[in-house]
């Protein structure tokens, strides 16, 4: 089930720790990308209980996040029928 902003922002990234999620927020801010920090979906639990979602059309920002040193454990497209690893 999709909840909160995830219904609107269909790209979702997960992290090993909250500190990484906070770092990601900063980078997204810098790129003026809207985002929301939401509880990590149970099926994707990787470490950090907070995940960040943002608009799918801006999924290429994942590269900027990684370039900035943010450590991710996963990146997904959220659909009604589940979470699918992002590729582009």
């Amino acid at each position, binding site marked *: 089930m999709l909840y909160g902003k995830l219904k609107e922002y269909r790209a979702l990234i997960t992290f*090993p*720790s*909250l*500190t*990484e999620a*906070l*770092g990601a*927020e*900063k980078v997204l801010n810098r790129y003026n990308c809207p985002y929301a*920090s*939401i*509880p*990590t979906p149970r099926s994707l*639990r990787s*470490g*950090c*209980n*907070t995940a960040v979602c943002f608009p799918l059309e801006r999924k290429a920002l994942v590269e900027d996040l990684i370039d900035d*040193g943010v*450590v991710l454990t996963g990146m997904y497209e959220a659909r009604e029928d589940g979470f699918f690893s992002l590729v582009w």
Partner: protein
Amino acid sequence: MIYLDNAATTWPKPQQVVLAIEEALVHKGGNAGRGGHGAAMQVARLIYQTREDLCTLFGMDDPTRVIFTQNATHALNQALFGLLQQGDHVITSSIEHNAVARPLWALQQRGVEVSEVPGISGKEFDFDAYRKAFRPNTKLVVTLHASNVTGTLLPIQEIGQIAHDYGAYYLLDAAQTAGVFPIDMGRLAVDLLAFPGHKGLLGPQGTGGLIVKPEIRLEPLIYGGTGSLSEEDRQPGFLPDALESGTLNGAGIAGLGAGVRYILKEGVDKIRIREQTLCQKLWNGLREIPGVTLYGSDIVEQRSPIVAFNIGELDSVVASFILEEKAGVIARAGLHCAAHAHRMLGTLDQGVVRFSPSHFTSEEEIERALLAVRTVAEELN
């Protein structure tokens, strides 16, 4: 009150620090990392901002390698117990604070080998003896940046470089210098930096930290909840969580961040020059008073903002008591948790009186403090 004990903890704090703590306590609820709700995230963001500001101040670029602790002592213990094991060798100086001397003594009981580089007053660090101290199993060199007794600065650039030449890590105790002297971990051969939040960084008590360069792995000093990998019994291996179990001092860290931002805005150099100017005035004034003995380098740039002295043979604790009673001058006397340094100075019995101004101290306060010392010295004769 004329507060001249900023080497113990700075006071007053900038108004920004007070407001940041109030803002956190009044408007930002929650426990960072404990629940993903908005309240927890608000505090988490404040803490993260402080990590970033500390990185800016200390020339690092990875906020995850800033570990928050209760104070400098906690950070030093985390570094020392986290790194050293039975059979390892560590080198230290002869003017360390008990925050280093005692953990090293305890580690020695557990089979860690400890060498102290001898020093004499005026020549606090003997490079020949230092080089000779290295052994094949030397894992770490740990020294303070400036003595909390005399303010004497150690040549940390060279100490670190030589440690690296011998394949050892360098842990720097910046308790007396963080926020007052430039410390650029990007350029210095410093692998681990321990700092208090409540001294030169102008934050509240109960804050401090350890910055760890990449590739260094420390065993945790404390194990427990981190808000991450909660289903596992094993402690997470990634930073900062690995070394930050338990609830952080959220409001305090928010205040620390405000202190760091204040320093970045004012400029470390401006703050230091102001404090050194006040120390020069203290030094010059004290030197004129018959019966006063001064300790440490007479070159103000070679000291952190500390002036250490005695009045005749008067017990330093009594001297400072009289200074407070008669003139409201607050100084620290005694051994300053640093018996090693006093042994070197020859002041184990008498201790010393220590004046440490802040950049908020006024010229007039310095003059009144000098007058108070003169009065005590005259009464003694």
